[in-house]
């Protein structure tokens, strides 16, 4: 069970080792074998849930969002945009593929997801499925 998600985009040159490591570690479990999990913030706006992830430098076309029931998947990749020959003096920014499966507290309407990617921040607005919204009950009050 994943309860805490570490930011684990491995450096590209470590990718293969990391993948192998995670494969060994996970065995037959259903958890992702790639150790690539961007951090998320999730909050409740009543009618909607909002999921936010910081994905600087990720292009819209390199991002895929899947939703089913109460499960949301954010996957994509970030690549170096440098074409010229370069030598690294410092490398802290993580590159490569990432995938994150999020279990939401309620079911959502998969066809009503609003996704925006602005200044490297992904925001997903999710509409809660009808039966999960708090019901309004009118109570008759006698005079």
């Amino acid at each position: 069970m994943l309860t805490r998600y570490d930011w684990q985009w491995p450096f590209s040159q470590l990718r293969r080792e990391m993948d192998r490591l995670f494969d060994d570690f996970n065995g037959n479990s259903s958890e992702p074998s790639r150790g690539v999990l961007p951090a998320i913030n999730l909050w409740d706006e009543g009618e909607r849930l909002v999921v936010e992830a910081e994905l600087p430098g990720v292009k819209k076309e390199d991002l895929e969002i899947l939703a089913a029931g109460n499960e949301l998947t954010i996957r994509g990749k970030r690549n170096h945009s440098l074409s010229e020959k370069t030598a690294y003096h410092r490398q802290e920014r993580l590159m490569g593929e990432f995938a994150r499966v999020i279990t939401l507290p309620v079911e959502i309407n998969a066809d009503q997801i609003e996704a925006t990617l602005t200044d490297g921040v992904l925001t997903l607005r999710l509409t809660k499925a009808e039966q999960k919204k708090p019901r309004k009950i009118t109570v008759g009050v006698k005079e």
Partner: protein
Amino acid sequence: MNSCDTHPTKASCRSMTTEQTRSGTLYTPRVDIVEQAEQLLLIADLPGVRAADVEIKYEKGELAIHGHVAERLSDQSRFVRREYGVGDFHRTFQIGEGIDTQQIEAEMRDGVLTVALPKTPQLRPRTIKVSG
């Protein structure tokens, strides 16, 4: 001591607090520093920062970058899950003598800041003509 220097892949790196200011918590952005033939590039992840909200200062051999991040959720009680903090980014760098500081340029795209630090002519690769 910047723990990101020794453990750049650590989860806590992004949320590392460097300073408390009146405006809130300052975060240290992750950076790459790369060298090309003509220049050095400083590439910093500044998610949530617009081009107009980046401030770059160079003074006495020190380059400071500051990215202002607008608050995105004021009601903290609505959080169901909170894995990272949101606030301004700040980091300073020592710039060596081989950089033409008059020619520093910067560009912001998709939450990534790229600062181009051109090398002084003395440091650029040259092709020397052989006569004879």
